[in-house]
């Protein structure tokens, strides 16, 4: 199976050195794959794909008028993380989400981190997702980011680095859960023998996280999931989670605000809602306060929220922490609020609004990945090494015009993982990892996360909308 495998100069998740030796935790997998022939692999792959399509495990591609659904391509070779490695990740992410929450609380209250000169005021206030409406507001249980998806990558030495924090509406957890189901069916014995930590309790933990926020303690809280609707690319995930949690999935038009309380319309009349897991960005949440052209939101919901009559997860205004300029300051936040060094480091980041950094960016495009500060999903990005002169010109102009909106990072040669490519050949493809963090009464991180893989040869872009696929991620007990 691996006879043509080229490790090249990247950090490989499976292969240790130039010879064919693998890390100990990959030994069992390698033996199992070695016993498979082409036909068996094709058959397993076909079964998995069919089951995904039939179950509707799909995402919608934006900009496609027919609303075509695609399955998020799934690769049969799992990514395996030994326990000790995972512990470090878990600790680092816990530390990070505590710091990010303190930061959000701070910038909407006393602004001590600004006053002490750690984070410049203009970085915070000019962030596209900074919400002045949230100043002085005490959010339920003082938690801002209840659900966080933090993207990790590994550099050439195999160190885990944080690439970005997704503290608004991170998606992908349903693929994580479905991938696990698929793998259990495809390789039942291998899975059992490996001692993999389960992930299927995620919906339970998520529900617990939501219920923790209820403004009516002592009563069974009514939690709902607010979706932008069936045409949203993550709609499958929304129904999936709502079903697993046993809560209603609602659209904006299902909710109505009366006298500062939120109700949902049911066939038995109106029911008061306590907690809303909203998969809708701040901008669309309330047409009265934010975008008045939003048809997806609920007029008056901010009023109910600010009065403390309903809880939102995530809180309003968390987008500041997602901002790629803010990202650069997270290590400083950890030192400031927690009096510790970061356990997981950032990818080195150049900020275009710093004069010297901008100069460097403009002169070194081919070495850099340039990103728009407020975009996600791989949109608004320039891959320096493969960019055309025209693209570079375009970005240079944009950067000069609005330096605040751009950052750059050196091209980190993401680690690679053996992946089944055309003709059942196994080749190395770049991967990242998105673990999901839940911050409720406890901070819980589901073991593993979504491993995304850039299926195009040489590509570093793993987003589903840009030709990425995914793998199951196995965190081992040992």
């Amino acid at each position, binding site marked *: 199976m691996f006879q043509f495998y080229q490790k090249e100069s990247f950090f490989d998740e499976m292969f240790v050195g130039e010879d064919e030796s693998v890390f100990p935790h990959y030994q069992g997998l390698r033996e199992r794959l070695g016993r498979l022939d082409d036909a068996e692999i094709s058959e397993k792959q076909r079964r998995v794909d069919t089951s995904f399509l039939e179950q509707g495990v799909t995402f919608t591609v934006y900009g496609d008028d027919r609303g075509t659904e695609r399955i998020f391509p799934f690769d049969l070779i799992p990514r395996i993380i030994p326990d000790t490695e995972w512990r470090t990740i878990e600790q680092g992410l*816990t530390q990070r989400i*505590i710091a990010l929450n*303190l930061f959000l*609380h701070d910038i909407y209250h*006393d602004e*001590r981190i600004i006053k002490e000169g750690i984070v410049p005021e203009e970085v915070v206030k000019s962030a596209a997702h900074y919400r002045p409406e949230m100043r002085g507001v005490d959010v339920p249980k003082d938690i801002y980011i209840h659900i966080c998806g933090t993207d990790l990558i590994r550099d050439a030495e195999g160190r885990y680095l944080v690439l970005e924090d997704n503290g608004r509406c991170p998606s992908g957890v349903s693929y994580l859960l479905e991938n696990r189901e698929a793998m259990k069916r495809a390789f039942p014995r291998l899975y059992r023998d490996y001692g993999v930590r389960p992930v299927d309790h995620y919906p339970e933990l998520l529900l617990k996280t939501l219920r923790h926020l209820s403004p009516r303690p002592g009563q069974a809280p009514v939690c709902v999931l607010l979706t932008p609707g069936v045409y949203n690319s993550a709609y499958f995930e929304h129904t999936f989670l709502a079903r697993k949690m046993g809560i209603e999935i609602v659209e904006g038009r299902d909710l109505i605000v009366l006298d500062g309380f939120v109700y949902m319309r049911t066939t038995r009349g109106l029911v008061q809602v306590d907690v809303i897991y909203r998969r809708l960005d701040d901008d669309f949440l309330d047409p009265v306060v934010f975008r008045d052209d939003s048809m997806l939101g609920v007029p008056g919901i901010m009023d109910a929220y600010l009065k403390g009559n309903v809880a939102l997860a995530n809180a309003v205004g968390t987008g500041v922490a997602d901002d790629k300029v803010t990202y650069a300051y997270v290590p400083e936040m950890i030192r400031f*609020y*927690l009096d510790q060094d970061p356990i997981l480091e950032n990818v080195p980041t150049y900020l275009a609004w710093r004069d010297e950094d901008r100069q460097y960016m403009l002169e070194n495009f081919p070495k850099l990945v340039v990103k728009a500060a407020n975009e996600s999903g791989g949109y608004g990005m320039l891959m320096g090494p493969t960019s055309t002169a025209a693209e570079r010109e375009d970005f240079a102009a944009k950067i000069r015009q609005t330096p605040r909106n751009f950052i750059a990072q050196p091209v980190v040669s993401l680690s690679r993982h053996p992946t089944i490519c055309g003709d059942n050949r196994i080749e190395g493809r770049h991967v990242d990892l998105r673990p999901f963090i839940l911050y409720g009464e406890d901070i819980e991180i589901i073991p593993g996360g979504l491993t995304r893989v850039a299926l195009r040869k040489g590509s570093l872009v793993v987003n589903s909308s840009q030709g990425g696929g995914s793998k199951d991620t196995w965190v081992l007990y040992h």
Partner: protein
Amino acid sequence: MRLRVHHRTEYRYPEPVSDSVNELRLYPPDTRWQKRQYAFVSVLPASRLRHYEDLNQNRTHWFEIARPHQRLVIESRAEVVTRQKVNFSAFPYGFHHDDLPRCRFREECYPFLQESAYVERTPEIWRRALDIRGGSTDVFQTSYAIMEHIYREFRYQSGATTVATRAGEVIEKRTGVCQDFAHAMVAFCRAIGIPARYVSGYFFDATRDHHLRGSEASHAWVEVYLESFGWIGLDPTNNKVVDETYLVVATGRDYREVAPVAGTYYGAGGSLMEVSVSVRRLPDGPVNGGEKDVRDLPGETVAVGKEQEPSVVSIQSVQ
């Protein structure tokens, strides 16, 4: 045993207060018996946190909030892997009362034989301690007897004492909570020359019916010094020799030196305090950094120094 702790303390002030300065002892140390996986201490309103190691080597965080505020939340989250300290089929007998005078000159014991803020030395306490000791010549046996005595003869009742109640009063009333029981035991031990220190921490109630006392708040117990064994923990509140379900956060001569939260602020009194502690047991896995690290850690050392100046303490949590 892998234990995860979440300790949250919230103060609410009826009127805004300001110039709050606080010290926190919430950071579990690495010792031969426990390995910290992580510990995060945080404060709301979000503030800059700093730390130093105090005289007893406890990591002490401190912060200040100058601006008026009506609420203060202090949280610590930690995951610690603990290891069984005592072989329960072979208790550390063999250290005799006659050998105790040797301890008096050991640096690590000296402070724990003296009077301290909550622990007096009085003839009454001394006489009672001798009664409990009876004919025992073994230090561990005597310590165990003291623990049992307190557990049996003292009534566990919250509200009967305050955070400021001293050992003498507890012994007289025979009533209190874990803080009081620990002070009483420390006083008895010291009275008859057994080095004893006050320990603040948490424990996981592994009993099926969760009948142990003090698991819902931060807990306190006692450690006595046995030559050639070191400090061994005894919990008079639950009549237990401390095992791997216990997690040490700080040690000192008495509560004053280990108070999880202590500080001052400017403003009217009458604050409301709410404490919640949860200790969960997680599936055992390898210890981060490898199992070896726990064993290879150097033994505990306790530095001795000048007695700390008592400060104005207006924020304290009862243990």
